[in-house]
C-alpha cells in the first residue's frame, strides 16, 4: 500500500458496466469518443472511435487542464467548475467531473451539439458516480484484489530492471 496516494482497482465487471453505460451515452448523443481518466492523469478506459488520438498523453493533459481550472474556480470563489468545454472548428471536447475521482471526457463533432451533450451528460455523470462509488467503497472494505496481485512478486520486479 502506497501511503497517502490513490490505490484502487477495477474488476472486469466494473469495466463492463462502465463500458456499456458509455456506449449508450455515445449512441444517444451521437458523440464519437468517451474517455474516462483518473485525476492523476491515468487513462481508465476509452469507448468509441478517435483514430490517431494519443490517449495516454490526452489523459495526462486532461487531468492537468481540469486541475488548473479547479484552482481558477477557487480563486473566483467557486468550489469547482463542474464541467469544461473546449470548442474547436471540427471537434470539441466536454469534460465533466465524476465523484471528484475521475473525469469523463467526451469528444464530439458537428453531428451533434454541445447542448445535447450537456443535457445528457448530467444523467451519465449520475450513473457513473454510482458505479465508481461501488469501486471505491469496495476498496475501503479491503475486498479489492489490489493488495494480492504483487504478493511475492519481488523476483519478477527485480527482473524488470535487468537493463
Amino acid at each position, binding site marked *: *500500500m*502506497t*501511503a*497517502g*496516494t*490513490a*490505490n*484502487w*482497482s*477495477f*474488476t*472486469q465487471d*466494473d*469495466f*463492463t458496466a462502465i463500458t456499456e453505460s458509455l456506449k449508450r451515452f455515445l449512441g444517444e448523443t451521437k458523440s464519437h469518443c468517451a474517455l474516462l481518466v*483518473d*485525476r*492523476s*492523469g*491515468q*487513462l*481508465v*478506459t476509452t469507448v468509441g472511435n478517435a483514430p490517431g488520438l*494519443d490517449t*495516454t*498523453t490526452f489523459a*495526462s*493533459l486532461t487531468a*492537468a487542464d481540469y*486541475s*488548473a481550472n479547479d*484552482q481558477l474556480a477557487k480563486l473566483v470563489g467557486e468550489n469547482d467548475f463542474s464541467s469544461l468545454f473546449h470548442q474547436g472548428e471540427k471537434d470539441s471536447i466536454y469534460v465533466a467531473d465524476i465523484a471528484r475521482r475521475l473525469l469523463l471526457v467526451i469528444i464530439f463533432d458537428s453531428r451533434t451539439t454541445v447542448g445535447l451533450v450537456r443535457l445528457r451528460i448530467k444523467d451519465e455523470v449520475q450513473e457513473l458516480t454510482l458505479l465508481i462509488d461501488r469501486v471505491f467503497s469496495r476498496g475501503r472494505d479491503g475486498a479489492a*484484489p*489490489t493488495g494480492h*496481485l*504483487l*504478493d*511475492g*512478486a*519481488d523476483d*519478477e*520486479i*527485480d527482473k*524488470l*530492471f535487468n*537493463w
Partner: protein
Amino acid sequence: MINYASREINCKIVYYGPGLGGKTTNLEHVYGKVKPETRGKLISLATETERTLFFDFLPVDLGTIRGFKTRFHLYTVPGQVYYNASRKLILKNVDGIVFVGDSQAERMEANLESMQNLYDNMAEYGYDLTQMPFVIQYNKRDLPNAAPIEDLQAALNPGWEVEDATKHRVQPDPYHAGQNLVEQVAGGEWVEKAPYFEAIAVNGDGVFDTLKAVSKLVLKALA
C-alpha cells in the same frame, strides 16, 4: 492504479527540485535512450525560453509482471518558486518522488527551499513523504563548484526518526557499500534516510539508476 480490465499497472513518478536543477534533462535522457516502442511522446508545457511552465510528461512501459503491463508516468514540476500553484497540482496522487538537487554549492539555499516546499505541498495533500517511495539525486556532479556529497546529505537528507519498533534494524544501503539507509545514531534513536544517487544528467550518468530505484520502490510498495 491497477486496471484488471486492460491488465495494466499505472504509476505516477514526479521529479521535484529547484529551478535549472536538471529535472527536464532527466526525462529527456530517458526519452532518448529507451526503445521508441516502449515510450510515448515527451510532452513539455514550457515557456518560450524552455523553462518548465506547468510540467513535462513522459509515459514509459517497463515490462510485464504477472501478466500486467507496468507503465510509469514520469512528470517534472516547474522548479521556479513563482509556479508553486501548478507545482502542487502535479503532486496529486503521486506514487513516487525523485528530488533532483543541484550540487553546486551556491544552489544549496535553493535546494533547501525546494525540499521544504516539497514536504509542505505533500503535507497539504495529507501525504507523508517519509512513508512513500522517495529517492534523492544529486545532479551536476561534474561541475568544479559541486559541494561534497557529505555536505549535501547532511543538509538535504539528514534522515527522519523511525518510530515503528518493528523496523528498528540496520538496513544497508544497496547502492553505497558501507553506508546504511536505516541505522541507530549516537543519541540512541533509529533514523532512516532516502536512497541517494550522484548524477550528471546531461550525459545520462545516474539517470537510469535513479529511475530504476524509485520504480522498484513503487512496485514493492504495491506488493
